[in-house]
């Protein structure tokens, strides 16, 4: 846990845990890439139990087998990977765990969490990372990233790794966002909607990263408002912020949501 950057409160809590005082059902909530999975593995290590991610294989048969064997273990379930039909199975498992079994549910902020799970589980929220913490994750990467990106656009260690792995060019995103802020009021609707075609929603890595783009746009519009005090920028920033919040929902059609946001922006400036 020594290499785990930030999250001091969680680390402190983890150090007090033992098999005798540990809750059986735990919910870890945080932004994508904040380290929920790593934390769950550390948790299992601390309890001295094997950890198993069952998010994609959850079924009645599998749960029955777990109940029958009753082998002490930590089961990790990423809710973003669980579809609605499997959710019923999960509810049963989460509500009635065996004493020897520990279940950790990983939830993204903004993702709809069934009330039954929320009521039954012990909820941990990840703290936001500071710029200093993020700079420590991969110093060779963060050194080349504009300072303004840390925290406002890059929120988690996972984001830092994403920049390295996908070789994301921050300058291209900055340029596009600047052009939108400058020229939206003279752009036609088809022009505005064409922005949605330049974005990578899944695996078109030569296009602009969706998450970094919308966070950057939201941040830049707020910055514009702060420097100009023009109310249109505030209204635009709010619309994009709303999109940023919704975007962590697993089933959202990001392209449609972005197109709708672009129409809202276009309507604000016209």
């Amino acid at each position, binding site marked *: 846990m020594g290499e785990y950057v930030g999250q001091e409160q969680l680390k402190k809590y983890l150090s007090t845990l033992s098999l005798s005082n540990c809750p059986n059902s735990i919910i870890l909530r945080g932004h994508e890439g904040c380290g929920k999975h790593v934390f769950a593995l550390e948790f299992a290590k601390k309890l001295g139990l094997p950890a198993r991610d069952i998010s994609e294989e959850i079924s009645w048969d599998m749960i029955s087998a777990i109940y029958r064997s009753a082998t002490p273990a930590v089961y990790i379930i990423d809710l973003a990977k669980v579809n609605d039909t499997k959710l019923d199975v999960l509810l049963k498992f989460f509500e009635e765990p065996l004493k020897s079994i520990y279940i950790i549910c990983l939830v993204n902020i903004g993702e*709809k969490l069934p009330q039954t799970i929320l009521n039954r589980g012990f909820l941990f929220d990840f703290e936001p990372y500071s710029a200093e913490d993020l700079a420590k994750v991969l110093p060779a990467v963060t050194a080349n990233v504009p300072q303004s990106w840390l925290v406002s656009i890059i929120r988690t260690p996972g984001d830092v790794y994403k920049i390295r792995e996908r070789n994301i060019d921050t300058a291209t995103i900055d340029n596009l966002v600047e052009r939108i802020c400058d020229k939206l009021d003279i752009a*036609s*609707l*088809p022009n505005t*909607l064409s922005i949605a075609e330049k974005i990578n929603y899944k695996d078109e890595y030569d296009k602009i990263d969706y998450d970094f783009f919308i966070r950057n746009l939201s941040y830049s519009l707020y910055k514009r408002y702060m420097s100009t005090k023009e109310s249109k920028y505030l209204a635009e920033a709010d619309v994009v912020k709303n999109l940023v919040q*919704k975007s962590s*929902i697993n*089933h*959202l*059609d990001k392209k*449609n*949501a972005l*197109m*709708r946001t672009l*129409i*809202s922006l276009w309507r604000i400036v016209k």
Partner: protein
Amino acid sequence: MKDIVELKNNLLAKKTIALPLIFSYTSSVRDLVKSYVDAIAENNGKQIIYAQNMQEIIDGENSTFTADESIYLLFCEKDFADFDQYASLPVIFLRRDLNKLTTASNIPQIDFPQLVSWQIEDYIKAKAAGLTEESAKWLCSICNQDLSRIDNEVDKIALFPVSEQQKMLELNKKEHGYDDLSSSTIFDLVNATMKKDFVAVKNIIKDLDCIDVEGLGLITLFTKQLKNILDVKLTNPAHYSSLKLSEKQINYIRYAYSSEKVDRVLDKFYSLLGLDEELKTGNLDLKNDELVIYILGKMLVA
């Protein structure tokens, strides 16, 4: 040309058929109409071109590069104010209407009379003698008296010996083999709704249980169509090449939706994207039937 009998005789005698012609028919005999169109093309030694609008035919005829070897087919949603102005063009006007033309015309009009039920039932019995009268009537009604669908179904039954035919129909009925019998598709529904053809929408909705229509699929098709309309309406013609649309599609959108106002199209597009978002994020929970009706209502009323 006076009527369908004379047309038939001329075709059998391999005579060249003078064009233009106006064909009036109902959807139940569309296969029959198609067979006549094919026969005319073969007799006249020409190929058939489906035209989107009159301008396309005029342009085609005036083009230096078009050889004189085409017959144009044009579906007429409404009668032209003056059909006669096109009297020199090799075109067959297709009207899905047996009523007289709203304006007088010298172009010969051929009516394809709707077959009455007993004629179709006799046809079924002739092909599959093992079926009872009731079964023939039933088949007729579930196929909505559409000859091509009836033909398809009867052909399958006729594969069995006469003594087994009634049994096979009962068995197929029991196993829900006829549950999906509808000539309409989700695309017909989308097109009828986009054109605000209330009668067509009403007829398709009657068959909704037999058509594979998913609410989310419907949203995708509508948003795609609306986006295309917006693109065409708001893009300067000089930049049409930047759109991912063919020239035919662009022309069709320009003419078919010329009276649609941009604001209204944009409102519909925006509200459908919002609906898609609500559904996919789980904020709106509707059964598929309810959702389909809700979407159609939104599209037709907006």
